[in-house]
């Protein structure tokens, strides 16, 4: 742990890198992230460090990379359900058959089915 903390101290002092091992703290603390303020201006004291800069986006970026988009990203479901609750899963449903890819929520992530000539319908 000591090595870990000293590593962070060195990194922060030299590069101003901000890290957070508890990115969900913002919701718990009721920070208002809907205003225009740059979250990087919010500073939090942290024992052993001068300052630790944190940002709300870190949480989900860390889990999904740039995730959250459908573009073939099968990890998006965990992002969507964790960020907006179960209701968000239905936002992906598309029950209308057509020429386009269909998306369905499954236990392992988003399932994509690609239309075949026999199932395809002209719009």
């Amino acid at each position, binding site marked *: 742990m000591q090595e870990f903390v000293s590593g962070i101290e*060195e990194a922060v002092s030299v590069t101003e*890198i901000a890290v957070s091992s508890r990115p969900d703290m913002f919701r718990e603390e009721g920070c208002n992230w809907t205003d225009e303020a740059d979250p990087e201006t919010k500073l939090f004291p942290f024992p052993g460090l001068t300052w630790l800069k944190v940002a709300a986006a870190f949480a989900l970026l860390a889990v999904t990379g740039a995730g959250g988009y459908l573009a073939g990203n099968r990890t998006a479901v965990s992002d969507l359900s964790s960020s907006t609750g179960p209701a968000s899963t239905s936002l992906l449903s598309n029950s209308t058959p057509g020429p386009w890819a269909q998306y369905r929520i499954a236990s392992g992530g988003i399932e994509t089915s690609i239309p075949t000539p026999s199932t395809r319908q002209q719009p």
Partner: protein
Amino acid sequence: MKIYRHTFCCLVTAWLVTGCVPSERFWWSPGGDKAAVVVKGQLRITDSTGKTLTIPEFPGIDGESNSAEYVEWASNGKSLITHRLRGFSSWDIAKSEFPEDEARRIEELADAIPAVTRTAIALGGVADSVDAIFGRLRTKEPDLLRNAFYLSYERDPETLRDILSGSPKLRAKLESGNDDSIGYFLNQIDVVRLETGTTTPLLKTATLLTRPALSPDGNRVLMGRRHGEKTLVDLVSITIADGSETPIAKRVFPAYAWQDDHTVLALSPVADSESLLKQLKSFSFARDHESTTEILATALIPFLPRLEVLPDRSVLFSSQTGVLPAEASTTLPGSALFRYLPDTRKLLRVPTPEGALPMNLGFFTASPDGTRVAVVESDTDAVAVVDISSGKVDLISLPRPNSKCRTLPGWRNTEELSFARLNEATGEVEWVVWKQRGETRVLSKGWAAESTAGWIERKKPNQN
């Protein structure tokens, strides 16, 4: 480290977005008589039949590689604004090309890289790319950090190899030096004058830039600068005459356009960058005045945000069509195109039938007269044309099995749309131009097959 010429392309898209998506690979001149086409990272200018007219020369130094990322035509069709990535294999070569302050910072950061890398791995474990490892850290300077990583590796490879012992794939990439993402990268915006063949640098920076957009008066270039959050950028405007930079907006998606010479429109996150709710905002600015921000609309966008300003000044964007709050079991309708009308401040839905558009509606491009929109998606290679006033959807290219679109269509004029299409007989990807009435012509006839091979992604035989 070695860098192979023209081996990397679309890195901007790759760095901003997870996975492959349709992106711009060709841009028609305003008159439709020429096209700027990027083939394996190299920019070429073709005529309307696909014949190469010229290959613009970009000044550089021996040993660097170049990848054209985006092109914007001037309204007279005589010059271009280009965004390219320059790659260098050694700091000795690269240093003189980087802005002085950035080069100094990269050298400062290089000393801290072993500690920073250890910290990132301690926080999030190992990963197969430098960006993924540093993605665990919150930094305002991810691109300087990435360049510093390679400088640190160049100076002392053994230390970083040791730190990366749990990531054999990344170690192998570094040792082979021939991976697309390995090396020092510089973003450069140039003004290319076709008549004289001259290229003038407008901006050089290590910071990842996104799509340059010329202002309506042609005097300024709007672009996004990555500032740390992977999917968000800060918007800046560069004056072509003197290179001065004006900040326009912070933390917006790379979905932006000029409304007029003093107003920029962009899609912005309501809360964090992963929120499905996004806002269409206008950013107005004038010399010696503070800029003002106005929220014009709120949208539900679980795909890549995109917007275009049409000739009638309306703003075209896509959104899901749900009404909130919604019960958990509710299946909301699919995605649709919308227009924001600035004069009446109203939103109009393009009246497409339910299911006629892809759920993943992040890839569209409007015709020059703003009457039609070409739509593709990333999971099939189908292409559709939507009539904006009636909502009628014509599927002009059927989806082929195991094919995924990786190229945004582009309108040559108000009647002709060009796009990538798989020729099932030859297995080759063709660049074609379609017309409502008339034959679809192949523009890439005679091109080497590999020129357009990546324009549509084919499922490999052993992929599920």
